[in-house]
């Protein structure tokens, strides 16, 4: 449905968005790339010239690098596993007939609207504080020694906080996917003699696979970049320094821009690998 006239109008109307995003992407990216090949210490002499790949090598060979990769993987993997498994169960439960479905849904979704700094602080102090936190009260009630969560079990604690934030998202999307399942399909399977568990395994789960993939990819992108939760709770201590946080520290705390930029390039590459998969799926959907 297009004439020459509307096509040229379309190009003009698209231009601002395209130009802005192009600038937003390219300018900082190019600067990061340039910095990553330099010895650049703003507080200690500034731009000290080109150093080739030295920053890239140093970033990877630093003693903090591999722990940060494993912390990142544990957090991302842990949160994904928890949110998807519980998300599916919760979505199925919420799809059953019940009283007050709307209210329950609102309760379940609420954590998604809580800003990360608030949820991190509330969990850190009011639940995980080893003397006055609610968990400490609970432990003492059962006669156990309260746990100092964020130092003794730091990674699981962070996983718990972040999972609480993201479970609503997973549930909401999986619930929408379940609701779009044609009930006639399930009825047909019932007529064909499939018991409930088999109906779940052979009809509901395959139907959900697409939604699960989407949750997986979107969450991965956001989880790779979690920042405030760690900034507020442990500040990167006790083995919770993720790749993102490590780069942040190199840039802002030790003011080593070159090194931080090299780390940034690694992070960009990592995010792009995930992004390519997500784009494929979304792209396929565009054709439909």
């Amino acid at each position, binding site marked *: 449905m*297009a004439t020459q006239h509307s*096509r040229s109008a*379309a*190009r003009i109307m*698209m231009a601002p*968005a*395209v130009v*802005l*995003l192009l600038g*937003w992407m390219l300018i*900082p*990216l190019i*600067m*990061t790339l340039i910095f990553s090949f330099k010895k650049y210490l703003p507080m200690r002499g500034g731009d000290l010239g080109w150093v080739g790949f030295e920053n890239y090598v140093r970033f990877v060979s630093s003693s903090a690098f591999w722990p940060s990769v494993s912390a990142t993987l544990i957090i991302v993997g842990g949160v994904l596993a928890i949110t998807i498994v519980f998300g599916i169960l*919760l979505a199925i*439960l919420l799809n059953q*007939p019940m*009283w*007050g479905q709307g209210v329950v849904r*609102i*309760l*379940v*979704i*609420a*954590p*998604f*609207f*809580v*800003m*990360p*700094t*608030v949820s991190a*602080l509330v969990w850190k102090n*009011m639940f995980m*504080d080893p003397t006055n936190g609610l968990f400490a009260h609970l432990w003492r*009630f059962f006669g156990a020694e309260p746990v100092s969560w964020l130092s003794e079990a730091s990674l699981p604690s962070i996983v718990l906080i972040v999972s*609480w934030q993201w*479970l609503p*998202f997973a549930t909401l*999307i999986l619930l*929408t996917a379940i609701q779009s399942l044609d009930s006639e399909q399930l009825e047909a399977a019932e007529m064909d003699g499939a018991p409930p568990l088999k109906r779940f395994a052979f009809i509901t789960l395959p139907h959900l696979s697409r939604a699960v993939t989407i949750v997986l990819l*979107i969450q991965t992108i956001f989880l*790779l*970049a979690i*920042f*405030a939760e760690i*900034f507020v709770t442990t500040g990167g201590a006790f083995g919770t320094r993720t790749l993102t946080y490590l*780069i942040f520290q190199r*840039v*802002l705390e030790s003011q080593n821009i070159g090194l*931080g930029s090299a*780390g940034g*390039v690694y*992070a960009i590459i990592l995010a*792009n690998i995930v*992004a390519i998969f997500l784009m494929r799926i*979304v*792209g396929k*959907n*565009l054709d439909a």
Partner: protein
Amino acid sequence: MARSVKTQRKIINTAAAWGIGLLIFFPILWTILTSFKTEATAIADPPVFLAFNWTMENYTAVLERSNYAKFLWNSIIIAGGSTILGIIIAVPAAWSMAFVPSRRTKDILLWMLSTKMLPAVGVLYPIYLICIKLGILDSRIALVIILMLMNLPIIVWMLYTYFREIPGEILEAARMDGASLKEEILYVLTPMAIPGIASTLLLNFILAWNEAFWTLNLTAANAAPLTAFIASYSSPEGLFFAKLSAASTMAIAPILILGWFSQKQLVSGLTFGAVK
């Protein structure tokens, strides 16, 4: 018989769902409750649920200690400004993509979305440097622009998915009826897309309100929004549970209410229409 089995199952479902729902909601509920306690009751062992003397003293204390109104105002300006600016730029772009698609439309859309995947930390210093050079570090305008750029792909995408559901014939009818491009978008497309535009507005307002990387790293005294206001309670004030709760409640209440209204639209927006 079948009926009673159904009722029984419904009771079990209801109990389970309410139980889990309340468990998930509990941290928020607990925060709100604690905000009305005295500091002593807030850390009492065993914890007190409802049987305490409700007090507003924490809210007064928080308001006295810090300029809450300023943080709130910053949040509103930053989240609102970036969202509205984003919509103004995105509506024409989404119109083009939805109604005058070309062979490259899909690639442009995917590319736009991919800019969203750039990890912020990777470009933190360049942005920081640019802000200093332009003299807009710790200013609301910098955050309005940055958050607008961050959310622009999502805004374009959401609008695109909503626009695509509007039949092109209606716009063609407007064109036959003598409407210019501007009139077509203003009188026909926009009124028809109001629900979609509203939910896009809402979702992006929420995303911008809760954004906690750029707002923490690029603001100080002047432009800090509520995310930074709360982060300042990290320690040692965090040990004052009741005041922390009051501050938290004030930071999340506006968005919690907004979010509940828009929960349905959230799904289509967040999945880029990939789950119907």
